[in-house]
């Protein structure tokens, strides 16, 4: 996956092992998620995993590829978990099924399978679903509303009407709407003072999920599964724009801390922009990719109409990867700056 120049060192690391570590790194985030929302998210993860594996197996069979090798590498499971974690946890079952099918069948296998897909499959799933079902994809359960597991199952596998009563906008959306309705009167500080939505930093409860993703991500970095370039430049991208606007007008723009710990920032920084297949491969390219993705994610999130911008930012940058990689080739050993 990574094309480098010599000297080559053998690395005892397979696709399967990388994927397994990514799954392990997601566990703290999932644990906090379960503690906040309840076991519904586990149902969604299980459903996503099942659908992704079935779709993967079907596509491998149709394309006459070795079934055991590709099913066992775990990449479909990583896609499934990322989809489940970025979709609303109490959404109807078919929402996640549609997302998973798009991710595996269209975004992954029709483009050539593992290692060939130009777009991040999980983000394709998110983009397709938020474009198709904007209302359902923006309904997140408020943290603290205790619903029983039976009710949650009824929401996922039952019918719609209950959902409206039990969902609210995400903290990001709430912030955007409050600022827009206030027409310059409402300030970030005043909006944030509503602790039942926003908690300490960036959304009651959700900030802890983000923190747990951060912990998992740092472990991945420590195990050298991911490099520092992509997550750090992504975070830097968000901090630069949000920090600049916040310093200029702290009344109308939330602090960088708020943006880092809300929405999909942390999940994006450590688990989504770091996708080795659809992202940049050169070290300098990774910095450009992460920085631009962070900036665009912030712009879509704050000035756009969608609740979060990470998916669209990553997909846009996926398109630019060949160009970025072309112009950021490291110099070959013994040559000066590529001449």
């Amino acid at each position, binding site marked *: 996956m990574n094309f480098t120049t010599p000297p080559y060192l053998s690395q005892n690391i397979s696709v399967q092992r990388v994927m397994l570590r990514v799954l392990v790194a997601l566990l703290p985030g999932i644990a906090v998620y379960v503690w906040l929302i309840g076991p519904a998210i586990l149902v969604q993860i299980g459903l996503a995993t099942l659908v992704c594996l079935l779709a993967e197996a079907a596509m491998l069979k149709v394309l006459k590829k070795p079934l055991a090798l590709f099913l066992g590498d775990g990449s479909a499971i990583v896609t499934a978990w990322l989809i489940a974690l970025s979709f609303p946890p109490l959404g109807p079952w078919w929402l996640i099924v549609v997302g998973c099918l798009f991710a595996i069948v269209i975004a992954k296998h029709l483009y050539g399978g593992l290692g060939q897909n130009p777009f991040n499959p999980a983000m394709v799933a998110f983009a397709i679903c938020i474009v*198709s079902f904007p209302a359902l994809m923006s309904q997140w359960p408020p943290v603290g509303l205790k619903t029983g597991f039976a009710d949650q199952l009824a929401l996922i596998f039952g019918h719609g009407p209950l959902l409206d009563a039990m969902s609210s906008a995400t903290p990001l959306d709430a912030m955007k709407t409050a600022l827009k309705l206030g027409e310059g009167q409402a300030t970030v500080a005043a909006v944030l003072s509503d602790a039942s939505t926003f908690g300490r930093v960036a959304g009651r409860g959700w900030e802890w999920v983000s923190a747990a993703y951060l912990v998992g991500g740092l472990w991945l970095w420590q195990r050298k599964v991911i490099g520092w370039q992509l997550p750090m430049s992504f975070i830097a991208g968000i901090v630069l724009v949000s920090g600049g606007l916040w310093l200029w007008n702290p009344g109308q723009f939330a602090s960088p801390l708020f943006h880092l710990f809300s929405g999909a920032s942390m999940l994006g920084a450590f688990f989504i922009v770091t996708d080795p297949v659809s992202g940049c491969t050169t070290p300098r390219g990774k910095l450009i990719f992460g920085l631009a993705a962070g900036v665009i994610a912030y712009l879509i999130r704050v000035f756009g109409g969608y609740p979060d911008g990470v998916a669209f930012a990553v997909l846009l940058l996926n398109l630019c990867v060949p160009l970025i990689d072309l112009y950021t080739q490291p110099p070959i050993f013994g040559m000066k700056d590529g001449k």
Partner: protein
Amino acid sequence: MINWTETRDIFANGAWKQNSSLVQMLGMCPTLAITTSLVNGAMLSLATIFVMSLSGFVVSCLRNFIPHEIRIPVFIMIAAALVTVVDLVMAAYLPDMHKILGIFIPLIITNCLVLARIEAFAAKKDAIQSLLDGAFMGVGMLWTLGMLGGLRELIGAGTLFSGIDAVIPSLHALQLLPENYPGLLVAILPPGAFIVLAFMVAARNWIEATRAARAQLPMPAPTSAGGCH
């Protein structure tokens, strides 16, 4: 005067072998933009059939009088006159449909399929053949755009023939999927056009490949992508 085998060849060429949307990839702009429903796709194709068959006929009749050097502007003027006819007739008799198709009716003239058939066929063959070629190329476009529009409509909204009342007021759209079908909106949006068209091209290539394999013939060369609007 009409040679049966030749006519059949022209038909097979237009409807399948050289299908404008699936093989030649010509006229992509209306193909992608207008096929939000079966009726829209079919109506635009019918208008294009009229323009293509008559422009083929007229150009073929005049082909010996058109100076070679300025043939392209002359072809375009002939086709543009016919497009104007379609535009005005539709505005007069099907005003609702005319409003929906809007700019895409005058834009038939920019559909390079029209000019391509005039230049490649009508400028060389006799008048009746050219008329048939234009019509059958249009038939190829009709079924492709109708199917593309129908699939997008069905996946995106769960209906078929929506907007038919703009053409035949006594008819109504069919609700094929249950009322509470949420509708995969992306199918109706522009990306859906690309995705569904890609599946149709793939299906056509697959059918051709299976046929070739069954006939123990060498595989046909993969059809080229890309084209113009």
